[in-house]
């Protein structure tokens, strides 16, 4: 039943980035489903026979933001188990906390890593994600500890 290559769904609305990511992931031996919008990703998930092993999600999408996408995944019992990895360029503590709270497994800041570094992380992530995938409930992600003074601005 196991496939040869793990499959990853990439949801990223910047076409240039999407192309680069897709190419690199394919070269690294992963099967890729590229989606340029949140809706497209949801349509794919609806019609796919087999769910992807992980989702690479950008926070800002043209048609919805990462939170709305996560909420959609969470609301559909078939999809809650898919591990999501947020790869974005905006990492305010609020956003990170919200995404992790909704069940995202990891939050990566794009500008801080080379593409190949992120891909190594993803491969690790898919391997480990497979083992602790039992959770539809609370995840064991450590939330950032500090942030006493969240501003309400």
């Amino acid at each position, binding site marked *: 039943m196991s496939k040869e290559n793990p499959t990853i769904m990439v949801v990223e609305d*910047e076409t240039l980035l999407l192309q680069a990511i897709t190419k690199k992931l394919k070269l690294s031996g992963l099967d890729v489903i590229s989606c340029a919008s949140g809706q497209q990703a949801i349509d794919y998930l609806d019609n796919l026979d087999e769910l992807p092993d992980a989702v690479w999600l950008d926070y800002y999408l043209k048609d919805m933001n990462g939170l709305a996408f996560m909420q959609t995944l969470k609301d559909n019992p078939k999809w809650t188990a898919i591990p999501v990895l947020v790869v974005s360029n*905006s990492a305010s503590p609020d956003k990170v906390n919200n995404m992790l709270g909704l069940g995202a497994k990891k939050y990566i800041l794009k*500008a*801080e890593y080379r593409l190949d570094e992120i891909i190594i992380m993803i491969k690790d992530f898919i391997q480990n994600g497979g083992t602790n995938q039992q959770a539809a409930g609370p995840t064991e992600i450590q939330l950032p500890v500090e942030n006493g003074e969240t501003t309400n601005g």
Partner: protein
Amino acid sequence: MLIRSRYNRLMLKAQAIAMHKLLGGLRQAQNNRDTVRTEQIYFICTYSFIGCLAFALFGLQYLAKDEKPLVGYLELIFALGFLVSGLLVAYTRHIALAKAVMLLVTSSFLMVMLVSGGIQGTGLFWFFVFPVLAFFFTNAKRGLVLALLSVIATSVVWALPDSMVDLPHSDIAIRQLLIVYIVVTVGVFLYQLYRDRTERREKAIDLAKSEFLTLASHQLRTPISAIGWLSELLLSGDMGKLNHEQKEHVEHIYASNQRLASIVDAMLIVSGLELKKLDMRIELVDLVAVSRKQLADQVSLHSDKMLQVSEKYPDQLPKLRLDPRLIKIILQNIFSNALKYTPKNGEVEVSIMQTDQQINPKSKGSILISVRDTGYGISADQQAAVFSKLFRAENIKRHDTDGTGLGLYIVKEVLDEVGGNIWFESEEGKGSTFYVMLPLEGMKRKKKDKKG
């Protein structure tokens, strides 16, 4: 082509100006807010203690004269009220609570005084102070409502038939009182309107700054990621092999982009620091591994200088509770300075060790990172300015024109924020040693001395 490059230059200039304004504005807004707060605390304390003293004196006087003991006791109660609100704000610095207590005390006092007599002399003073207080404690609109309510209350009491309330004042006195009251109210209202507008503008600036941070981090970083990742793809040979010259060019694109990325990062951190919104995420970090990687990255940028770089790490160092991004920035800056400002064939030595030295009384020990170089050094007269923003030493400007003067400023500010420390020893022409100390317990956000 020409138009585009001119456009780009204009855009860059505009961005630089915006950034500069923003950073200036940030500091000012912070100062203004602190000033308003201090002003309020000072005002409330002074007002309450004068009030307390005056009422206590008058109250005791009444009691001593044995004429109207009820008034005497009432005044003593008001004195107590003022004392409580003064102490409240002095010790708890809880302005809202103190404001409420004082408005209550003052307004009930006014009504009592109107009915019982005594608007002559000192009594008048308290009447005129009321609208001033109402505006000072609230915003313009609420102040107006409060002041008008007291005008109406006074008028109603005045209009009641004598059989119900026997006012001890003449009609003329009350009319005069009302007119003066209204004049004072209008004056203070205008002043307060102006004040509110300033406050609103400050809030808007604050919000704009936060939005700018979010927008900037996303909008600036997205193209940077695209350039970086695409050149990475070309360099890795995944898209076909590049010839020597092509490869060199793409490497330059990649390196310039890295530089741009770190400048953007530096700007965002500076704004974050000045907005007091430094984003900190603690993880367990292998400091030695991070140090090895950062040093190797920096060394590769200066491979033409044939520097002798050595590293000394402890055999066993527990993983530390650090923010990976911040520790990376700290190491990157001190390593890059050492390598950049050391001439050919020089030496750079990095060492990390665990010491018993305590960085604060609660600390169980410290991690000391030191970077020694045989570089240009910093002249004695410029050493005091090393950690100030935009500072660049005279002797290094000749060797390198690229620096932003933000690196050590950021490192110092970040370390201050997370409970660490940095200092250095340097001699011009011989070299410098920079020391960074972190508590063994890891980074911890500095406790604010007062609530925001």
